[in-house]
């Protein structure tokens, strides 16, 4: 596998979706290609950082409007 092949398969590799033989081929390439290893590691870290992002606290005014609208909906459904 060459560098282009590694880049094409990065997502599948990080998601654990590569067939064993392809994964082994990719890892053999990573053993001797510093650039591809760096790209794989940095792409993985990129995903991890976004994945770990905490949900935002809903601003008080947005929360209040949401729950008011919900109350109206619930009331209209039960009436």
């Amino acid at each position, binding site marked *: 596998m060459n*560098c*282009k092949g590694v*880049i*094409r398969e*990065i*997502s*599948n*590799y*990080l*998601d*654990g*979706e590569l067939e064993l033989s392809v*994964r082994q081929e990719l*890892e053999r390439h*990573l053993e001797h290609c510093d*650039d591809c*290893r*760096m*790209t*794989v*590691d*940095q*792409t*993985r*870290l*990129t*995903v*991890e*950082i*976004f*994945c770990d*992002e905490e*949900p*935002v*606290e*809903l601003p008080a005014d*947005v*929360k209040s*409007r*949401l*729950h008011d*609208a*919900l109350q109206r*909906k*619930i009331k209209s*459904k*039960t009436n």
Partner: protein
Amino acid sequence: MLSAAIMEKKVNVRPPVGPREPLSAPNPHRLPSRVAREDEHLLVAAAKRGDAAAFEELVSRYEGKIFRLTMNITRNREDAEDAMQDAFLKSYSHLKDFQEDSRFYTWLVRIAANEALMRLRKRRPNQFSLDEPIEGEDDLMPLQLEDWGPSPEQRFAQTEMRTILNSVIDTLEPDFRVVFVLRDIEELSTEETARALGISIPAVKSRLLRARLKLRQKLNHYFRQGTTN
């Protein structure tokens, strides 16, 4: 009341943060969802039977995540709020149609993503089309490769980091951003993402690959060693 009993039973499902895996080891990042609490189906069942408090508990539980989702897709606060509100109201109206063949949260994410996409299309009709053919592979190769050093994200305070993530995701083209948000932030599967967006699985994979590579490229500006901004 059932919903009150469920609400008392809070379960912390966030997995403990362990040491990072050795670099380049096979390490599928996808983890069991952090949001699906074990009592979700009980709340849904109670809400379906007309227990409004149970539905309100579901809303309280997911409002922050759904607002983050609609903000990430629309990048506009007014649209994000409208999309979030309509998503919760529609999910309440159509709760009886929810078949429970997936998690309630996944179903809610699909509704919210569609509401957000509708507003994005309205606001940027010429900039957003998931139907466009996938481009070739010439653009995939990384342009800049520089050492980030160990744990580069820890060089930034939490608020600073959030600003950085917001600014880099903002620059991503909407059709890549939407796929990245659903797959990597909301943790939908490839199939669920394809279904939610009405595109093929290869299209999801192609856009996700490009989104991840583009975000890596943009983070390089902040993370490369010796950078302090």
